[in-house]
Every structure is written in structure tokens, then in C-alpha cells.
């Protein structure tokens, strides 16, 4: 994958007339929760506030975490989930899931939160007209970790995913544990075999199998499918996806059972084959009522490497046996499984498959549907946040200038766009258009201009005749 060593950061493209303008919140690597305007001005950095992810709330408040568990003992365990006001005061906190006593560490209660949470009032954690998250009351659904033993899956210690619902006062009133439903996920024998031997074993805490790795969790909210009588899509039901298994599932809030699912395999029906193999996905959620595409499921299909199954040359042991070196954002009808909108390297203007990895984030990432039909996409591994129209035009681009010192990446786990009105502390910012630079002619100081000093005609030279068929490698479906 070609990636230049020098490139601009901050906002690089901005068309105010075509954007859904607002503030964007994301975790600036090893800095804190950063809120930027459309031109990339950092209007507030909640210094040191971790974000897995950060989410903005009405009134200029933000969700985050005060700390993370020592990685020697826990993987991605946030110590807590906190709600912080504009000035950095903690106005709500939950940490009382598990009392942790790691060697050499101060014993403490921890939420062990990771990847997601949802506050009542809003099903998905981003702006939806008429569905503001509550800020002074309301329950919160939180995705957390717990360590378990489950010989059905493996004899090794497992890092399991659990979803809890906590009240404003911090009482846990609902709990769901992923491994309890292992039998219902449809793993074939090949998958069960590698899961038993290597359930995505990670070194933290002496070793634990992060077998499912749920990385998103949200409510369906009111939707047309349930209005039509389909109980699978009850508004209280919860959708999640598992990065390691390529599963996206909806569970009944009432029974905990899986009521809708795609994956782990995508070759069992014509519908799934047309959908294509989803690999290592993130941020699968139902587009909420009131937004274009409502009722459809929006997924950042990372590609990369994920899944359990029959070994192949890229996965000699059967672990992470599905591979693809580009990403795609897909919006699917959950009943027909048809793709109704997508943003892939092709829509991004890259030649498929030869240049496809220019749109590629093999981990993290997200997609948010905006009220004007645009989609905010976090191509997370490279710290790139873009806004594209329904017609796939790139109308905003921001490259995070924040590289971590410990993790030398400018990665952005997940960014969210919020309306200006959610930050009453600030006047509406000035919106200055940024035309897309023509990189063919743009030069850094000292570089020579594009045009050659001398052009020489060659007698007998014929016109170039090029199409993909002349390249050294063919497309897989050529």
C-alpha cells in the first residue's frame, strides 16, 4: 500500500454548501477528547479524557473514561464511563462492575467498558433529530468485558463480552453475556475447532481468548420493520457485531436470544453471496428513524483479517481465515440483505482492485448517517475522517495530526458529528471552504514544478492503449 511520507493534516477538503456542518468529536491519540469545527479548529480538548469512544452530548458535555486498565492485566478495559461537562467536571460516572486487584496496582472498581455505550433517549450515540440523549437522567447501556471459562468454546480463559444496563444511580438492572449463546451463532466444525485451540488468544493477564471481540452495540430504536409487525426489530432490541467472528447480530432485549444474524459465513445463501464476505467489521448499527436510510443497517466492513474456519495459505491455522485488503461501507436492507448504498474504493474513485487499498482501515473505523443524507466515515487506522454525499462526492476530509507517542499511529477509533446547537458555549463558527488541492501540481518548498523542462518528440511513438487487462494481475472476478 503506497502511502506518502509527507501529506497535509487537519481539514484538507471542505465544501460548506454540501456538508452537514457541525462539530466533530474524536479521540486525539494520547491527547484527549478533541472537538473540532469544520475547518479543523480544536475548539475544546478535554485533556487526558480517554475515548473508547468519545461521544458528544447536548449542552457541550462529553462521554469518555478517566483511565484504562494496565494492559499487562486487561485488554482494552476502560476503568469507567464518565460524563464530563464543558469545563471538565465529571457529572456522572459508572465503574462498579468488577472489583479489580491487579498485581502492583491499586485495587479499584472498574467498568471494564470497551468500544461502546448508549445513553437513553438516543439509540445509536449520534445526532438524530428528535432523539437527543438524556444528560441529567436515564439508563445507559454499556459494553464491558468479563473473564470466563466456557469449555464449550475453549478450555482457555476467555475475554467475554457483556452488555449491562445501568441506571443513573449506577445500579445494574440488565445484563447479557455473549458466551451464553455460543450454540446459536452457527459456527461450523472448522470454526469450533480453531476456536477451541486458539480463541484469539491475547497476552494480557497471563492470556485470554478475545474470541468474539464485540466492537459496537446500539439499540435499534423505533423502525419501520417493527411497525410492520416484525418482532425481530423491536425498538428495544440490541445490535452488535463481533470483529473476530464476522458476525453481526440483533438480540432480543427481553430474552437475550439472537433474533437476526449475518455471518459468520457468507457463502450459505444467494443473498449472503451477493452481500459478500464481511471481514472484521465495525460500527454495525441500524440507521435511526428520522435519518435518510432509516431502518437499514450501516456497517464499516473493514476487510483486513478476521474469522475462524478452514485453514488457507493466508491463515495456515484457520484463525483470521478471511482476508481482504480494502474496506467498504455498506448500507443493507436487513430483510432482503441487499446493499442499498455503499462506499467502496470504486465509489471513492480508486481503480478496483489495483488501487483499492487506498480506502482501507483493517481495524477500528465507523460510519454515521447525517441528516442530509451524507455519511461521516472514520477510516480509522490512518486517522482519516471524511464526509461523503449520497452520490459519493467527498465534501470534507480531516486527517488527524495527532500521532501517539506510545502507539505510533494517528488512528481515530470513531468520530461523531454533532450539531452546533449541542455546544451552546460557543458562537457558530465561521465556515471557510477548502478546495481540494490538485496533488499533481501541488509542490512543497524546494520541489520542482510539474512540467518537464524539455519535451522531446519520439519518431514513431504510438498512443498509449491501456485498460486493466494489460496489468500484471487480473481482478479476482475478471
Amino acid at each position, binding site marked *: 500500500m503506497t502511502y506518502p511520507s509527507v501529506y497535509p493534516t487537519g481539514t484538507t477538503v471542505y465544501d460548506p454548501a454540501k456538508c452537514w456542518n457541525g462539530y466533530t468529536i474524536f479521540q486525539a491519540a494520547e491527547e484527549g477528547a478533541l472537538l473540532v469545527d469544520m475547518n479543523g479548529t480544536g475548539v475544546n480538548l478535554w485533556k487526558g479524557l480517554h475515548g473508547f469512544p468519545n461521544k458528544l452530548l447536548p449542552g457541550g458535555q462529553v462521554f469518555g473514561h478517566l483511565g484504562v486498565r494496565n494492559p499487562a492485566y486487561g485488554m482494552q478495559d476502560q476503568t469507567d464511563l464518565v460524563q464530563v461537562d464543558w469545563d471538565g467536571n465529571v457529572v456522572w460516572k459508572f465503574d*462498579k462492575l468488577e*472489583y479489580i*486487584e491487579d498485581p502492583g496496582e491499586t485495587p479499584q*472498581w472498574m467498568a471494564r467498558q470497551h468500544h461502546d455505550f448508549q445513553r437513553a433517549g438516543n439509540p445509536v450515540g449520534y445526532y438524530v433529530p428528535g432523539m437527543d440523549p438524556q444528560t441529567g437522567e436515564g439508563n445507559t447501556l454499556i459494553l464491558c468485558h468479563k473473564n470466563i471459562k466456557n469449555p464449550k468454546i475453549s478450555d482457555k480463559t476467555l475475554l467475554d463480552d457483556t452488555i449491562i444496563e445501568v441506571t443513573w444511580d*449506577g*445500579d*445494574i*438492572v*440488565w*445484563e447479557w453475556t455473549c458466551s*451464553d449463546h455460543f450454540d446459536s451463532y452457527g459456527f461450523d466444525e472448522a470454526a469450533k475447532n480453531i476456536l477451541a485451540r486458539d480463541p484469539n488468544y491475547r497476552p494480557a493477564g497471563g492470556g485470554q481468548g478475545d474470541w468474539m471481540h464485540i466492537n459496537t452495540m446500539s439499540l435499534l430504536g423505533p423502525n419501520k420493520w417493527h411497525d410492520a409487525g416484525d418482532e425481530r426489530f423491536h425498538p428495544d432490541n440490541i445490535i452488535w457485531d463481533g470483529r473476530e467472528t464476522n458476525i453481526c447480530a440483533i438480540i432480543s432485549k427481553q430474552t437475550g436470544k439472537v433474533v437476526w444474524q449475518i455471518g459468520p459465513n457468507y457463502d450459505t445463501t444467494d443473498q449472503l453471496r451477493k452481500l459478500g464476505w464481511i471481514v472484521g467489521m465495525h460500527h454495525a448499527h441500524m440507521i435511526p428513524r428520522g435519518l435518510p436510510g432509516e431502518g437499514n443497517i450501516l456497517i464499516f466492513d473493514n476487510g483486513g483479517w478476521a474469522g475462524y474456519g478452514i485453514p488457507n495459505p493466508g491463515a495456515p491455522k484457520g484463525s483470521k481465515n478471511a482476508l481482504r485488503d480494502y474496506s467498504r461501507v455498506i448500507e443493507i436492507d436487513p430483510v432482503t440483505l441487499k446493499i442499498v448504498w455503499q462506499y467502496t474504493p470504486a465509489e471513492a474513485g480508486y481503480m478496483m482492485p489495483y488501487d483499492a487499498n487506498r480506502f482501507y482501515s483493517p481495524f477500528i473505523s465507523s460510519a454515521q448517517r447525517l441528516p442530509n443524507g451524507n455519511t461521516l466515515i472514520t477510516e480509522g487506522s490512518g486517522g482519516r475522517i471524511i464526509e461523503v454525499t449520497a452520490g459519493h462526492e467527498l465534501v470534507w476530509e480531516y486527517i488527524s495530526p495527532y500521532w501517539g507517542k506510545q502507539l505510533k499511529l494517528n488512528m481515530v477509533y470513531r468520530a461523531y458529528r454533532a450539531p452546533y446547537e449541542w455546544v451552546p458555549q460557543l458562537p457558530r463558527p465561521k465556515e471557510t471552504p477548502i478546495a481540494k488541492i490538485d496533488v499533481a501540481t501541488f509542490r512543497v518548498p524546494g520541489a520542482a514544478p510539474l512540467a518537464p523542462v524539455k519535451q522531446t518528440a519520439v519518431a514513431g511513438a504510438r498512443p498509449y492503449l491501456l485498460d486493466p487487462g494489460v496489468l500484471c494481475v487480473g481482478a479476482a472476478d475478471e
Partner: protein
Amino acid sequence: MYTIYSATGCTRCKIVMARLRQLGLDFAEHDMKAAGKEAFQRFYAANRRAIFRGPEGVEFPLLTDGQTIRQGLGPALAWLQAGPDALAGFFQVGVLHKEWLDGIDISGGDPARADDFLAVLRHLKQNAMKLEIATDGGNAALLAAAVREGLADRLVMNVRGPAHLYGQLAGRPVDPADIRATIALVAAFPAKQFQTVVAPLRRADGAVAYLAPGEVGQAAALIAEAAGDNHQPYLLRPFRPEAAADETLRRAEPLAAAALLPHRSAARTHQVKTEIEKTG
């Protein structure tokens, strides 16, 4: 003349038969997996009300003299040690297998029979069994004696509830000093478990209501106070109405697992390792 119904390869059956021989008692063996199959089926059909059948089938051995029937290693040895009823309450049919033996309730028997009780435990240990001993706080001195002599391998304490409801939940008075002493003994033991069944009980106004979260919190606090720490393994177990002896309690609506979450929160205030038993 005793009759023992056994199963091929049943170590527990061999222990009982060895004890019968040791005591010079005559017996006939019927191996239900061999020639004794039909005899066992006849015996079972005639006595099924007295024979416990668990999820994995009938627990062996079954020992009978034609009138009395004792099932399982502990109850059979107790009978041979002290007669059919003297140790009643101390030993029941268990559910653990291989070298582990449960069904030993140290609070359930007559402390005046401590010598016989300990003799049975010694015999079990001499036969390489690992013993899980249950208690609800009664007979603390007997538990101390068993522990002192190395006769226990795992202790399980059923903390019935908060101190003010303890006797009512236990169905008999339990000396508060015994409860505290037992908690301290169990807490100091290497392999242990505290547990509370979140059960219904008749309240002062006559209504039947489950232990409230606050009351379970008080039970957890009782453990913390007597144990001297808040890190004990503490399990909350859902009540199974169908197993209740009291007709009124049998009619109680079972609590959903999620209904125990507030109890867990309350208990974790005092015992941070509190969990809810998984069922189903």
C-alpha cells in the same frame, strides 16, 4: 443381611462393600450393569420414591436391609457407623463425582453424634475421597473439629440471610455466635464458597416476599464483619420454588435472573466478588 446395588467400576460401591466386610456384615451384591440388572430394576420399580435420580442417572451405591434404604456413599457409611438414623441430617445424596463427595451438611445433624460423624469423615478420607462440607452456621464447633483434623477439602457456607431473618430462613434457631464463628472458619479456609439463596419468606404482615436487595446486602455485610474482609467468593442463587418444603413458598413466582441484579449490586457493596449463579 444387607443388599447392595452397585455398578461396574463404581469406586464408592467398593468402599461400602469393603466397610461391610470390615464390620463382618453379610451382604449380597447386584451389579446393575451386569448380572444384577434385573434385580436392580425390580428394586428400583418397587422403591423409586426413595431413590434419587439426578440429571446423570441414579447415584450408587444403594444399600438396603429390606426395610431401610440408603443411597450414596455418605449415607451408606453413616448407617453402617451409627445405625439407620443416628446421623440423619449429616449426609444426603450428593451430585459431585469421581473423588469429590458432597451432600455432607455439618449443620444438619445432631452434634451429640459428633464422634460418629467424624468417624465417617475419617473413613472417607482414608479412602482418598475429597470432601465438600456444607454448613449454614450451625454446629460451628463440629466444623472447627473437622477442619482441625484435615477432614474437609472444600467448605460451602449457606448464609441464609441477614442476622434478623436467619432463623426464619433456616427453619430453626441458629446461634449468632455459631454463624460468626463459622463465617470466620470458612473465610480462612483455602477452598470455600459463601452463598445465599434469594428466597421468599413470610413477612410480619403475613405477605410472602423475597429477600430484598438491602437484606442480601446485610447478609454480605455479615460475612464481611465476621470474615474481616470483603473479598470472599459469594454466590447468589435463585430460589427454586419446586424444591421448597413449604406449600406457600412452592407457589412463589420464581425470580428471573435479571431480578437478582439489584441484590448483586447491594451485596457487592460489602463483598466485591459477589456473582449470580448461572442457571439453565
